[in-house]
C-alpha cells in the first residue's frame, strides 16, 4: 500500500508526534485505574495520577471475596461456551450462504444484519419473564443464549467474508473424490477456515466478556452473575469502607485478559472488525 508521499522531516515529525498522542490517549485511563488499584489505602485521596508507593492490599482483598472469584468463573465459563456456540452455528450458516445455492440466502444475511441493529434492552423484560418460567433465570444457560444470539450476526458476517477467500476448488476436488458435502466441510474446509473462525471467536468472546445489561437483568446471585455486574454491585455492598480501590483492583484483573488478547491477536481483530464494513 502506498505510504505517505513527500516525507519532509517536519512532516514526519508531525505524524510521529501524532502517534505518540494516540498511544497516550488510548492508554492513560487504563494506567489511571492501575495506579488507583496500587495506591496504599491511606493515599487514595491524594489526587495524584501516579501512586506514591505501591501496595497489593486491594488485590488481596478482591481475591479474598468469594463473590469475585465466583463472578470470574462465571464470566470465563459463560463467555467461552457462548463463543463456542455462536462460532459453531455461525460456521454452518456462513458455509451454506457462501457455498450452497438455496432460496433465502440473502434473507439470512439481511436478517442477521437486522439483529445486529436490534436494541437488546427491548427484550430484557420478556426474557426476564420467560427465563423465570423456564427456570433459566440466574443460570449460565440464561446468559449463554442471548450472548450467542446477539453475536451470531457478527459471526456469520465475519465468517462469510473469510470463507469467500478460501480456495474452494479443494472442496470440489474432495467431492469429486467421493466425499459427501459434509465430509468435504469437515476435512477440507474447517482447517482452511481456521484463521477466520479464530477471528470470529475473539470478537464474540470480547462481546460476552463485556456485556453488562443482560448480566444485570437476568442474574441475581453468584450462581451466574458475571464480573461486570459483580463490580457494579461492589459499590453498594460495603458501607463502612471506601470500595473504590477494590473496584479498581477488580477492574484491572478483568482488563488483563483483554490486553493480552489484544496484544496477541491485534491483526486478526482489526481484520475481523473491518471485514464486513469495507468490502463492497
Amino acid at each position, binding site marked *: 500500500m502506498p505510504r505517505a508521499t513527500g516525507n519532509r522531516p517536519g512532516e514526519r515529525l508531525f505524524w510521529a508526534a501524532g502517534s505518540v498522542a494516540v498511544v497516550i490517549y488510548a492508554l492513560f485511563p487504563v494506567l489511571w485505574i492501575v495506579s488507583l488499584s496500587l495506591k496504599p489505602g491511606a493515599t487514595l485521596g491524594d489526587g495524584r495520577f501516579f501512586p506514591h508507593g505501591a501496595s497489593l492490599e486491594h488485590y488481596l482483598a478482591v481475591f479474598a471475596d468469594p463473590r469475585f472469584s465466583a463472578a470470574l468463573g462465571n464470566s470465563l465459563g459463560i463467555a467461552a461456551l457462548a463463543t463456542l456456540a455462536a462460532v459453531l452455528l455461525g460456521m454452518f450458516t456462513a458455509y451454506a450462504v457462501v457455498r450452497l445455492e438455496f432460496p433465502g440466502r440473502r434473507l439470512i444475511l439481511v436478517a442477521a444484519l437486522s439483529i445486529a441493529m436490534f436494541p437488546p434492552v427491548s427484550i430484557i*423484560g420478556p426474557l426476564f419473564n420467560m427465563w423465570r418460567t423456564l427456570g433459566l433465570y440466574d443460570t449460565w444457560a440464561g446468559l449463554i443464549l442471548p450472548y450467542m444470539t446477539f453475536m451470531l450476526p457478527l459471526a456469520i458476517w465475519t465468517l462469510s467474508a473469510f470463507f469467500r477467500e478460501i480456495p474452494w476448488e479443494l472442496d470440489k476436488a474432495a467431492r469429486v473424490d467421493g466425499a459427501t458435502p459434509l465430509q468435504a466441510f469437515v476435512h477440507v474446509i474447517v482447517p482452511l477456515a481456521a484463521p477466520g473462525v479464530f477471528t470470529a471467536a475473539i470478537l464474540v468472546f470480547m462481546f460476552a466478556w463485556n456485556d453488562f445489561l443482560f448480566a444485570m437483568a437476568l442474574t441475581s446471585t453468584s450462581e451466574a452473575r458475571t464480573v461486570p455486574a459483580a463490580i457494579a454491585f461492589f459499590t453498594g455492598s460495603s458501607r463502612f469502607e471506601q470500595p473504590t480501590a477494590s473496584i479498581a483492583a477488580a*477492574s484491572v484483573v478483568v482488563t488483563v485478559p483483554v490486553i493480552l488478547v489484544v496484544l496477541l491477536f491485534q491483526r486478526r481483530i482489526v481484520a475481523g472488525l473491518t471485514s464486513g464494513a469495507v468490502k463492497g
Partner: protein
Amino acid sequence: MNGRTAAEQRLAWLLCAPAVLAMLAVTVYPMLYALWLSLFRYDLRFPDQRQFTGLDNYLSVLTSPVWWQALANTLLITVASVSLELLLGFCFALVMHRTLVGRRTVRTALLVPYGIITVVAALSWRFAFDPTTGFVNGLLGLEGAWLAERGTAFVVIILTEIWKTTPFMALLLLAGLTLVPGDLLRAARVDGAGALQRFFRITLPLMRPVIMVALLFRTLDAFRIFDTVFVQTRGAQDTGTVSLVSYNTLITRLNLGLGSAVSVLIFLCVLLLAALYIKGFGIDLSRREES
C-alpha cells in the same frame, strides 16, 4: 429440480436452521411478546391485577416527562459522541495511515479502549473525575463534583463514550483510507492541489460509503447507551437514557406492561434511525453481500 440441487438445498437449510431458530427464539419471539405485554396492565408485584388495557401504557409513557427527558438525553449523547468520534476518528486514522514509525504499536494501543469492558472504562473515568479520589480537579485547579451536576455529568459520560468507541471508528476509517488510490493523490499534488483540497475533493468523497456504514453502526450503538450512564450516575441529575428508563421500569420496578411499552418505543426509534440512514443517506447495505 434435480436430485443434487434438492439435496444441496436440504443441506443448506439444515446448516442454517440452528442459527435461524436461535435468532427467532431469542429476538423475534421476545419482541412479539413485548408487544403483547405492552397492551396489558401487568405488574409482577401485583400479578393478579393483570388486565388488558389496549394502548394505555403507550399513552402513559408518551405523556410522561421522564420518557421525553430520557429521549432528549439519549439523542444529546448520541449526536455529541458520534460527531466528535467521527472527527477524532479521522485524525487517528490519518495518523495511522501516514506515520512511518510504530504503526502497529498505535493500532494495538487503540484496541485497548475498544476491548476493555465498558463498565471498567466508565468506572475509571468516574474515579478520575471524583472530587476525593480523582486527579482531574487537581490537574485543572477546580473543585467541582462533576457527576453531581447535570451539565458536567454529561461531559464525563460523553468523554467516556468517545474514549471507548473512537478506536472502532478510527479502524474502520483507516480501512477506508487504504481504498483511496495513492496515485490519484500524488497526481493531484503534482497538479498543485493543497492538502485540504486533496482531502475534501478526493479522499472524503471516495470514503463516503465507509463513513456512512461507520456512522450507522455507531449511531445505533450510541442510542442504546446503558452501561456508562448506569455506572456513572444511575440516571441521577436527570441524566437518564431511554435504555435506563426501560431497565428501571422492567427490572427494578417489575412493571412488565409499562416497561414493555418503553421497550417497543425504543425498538421503533432504532428502526426509524436505521431507516433514516439507509433511505436518507443512501447506504446500500445489500451491495456488501455481493462482494
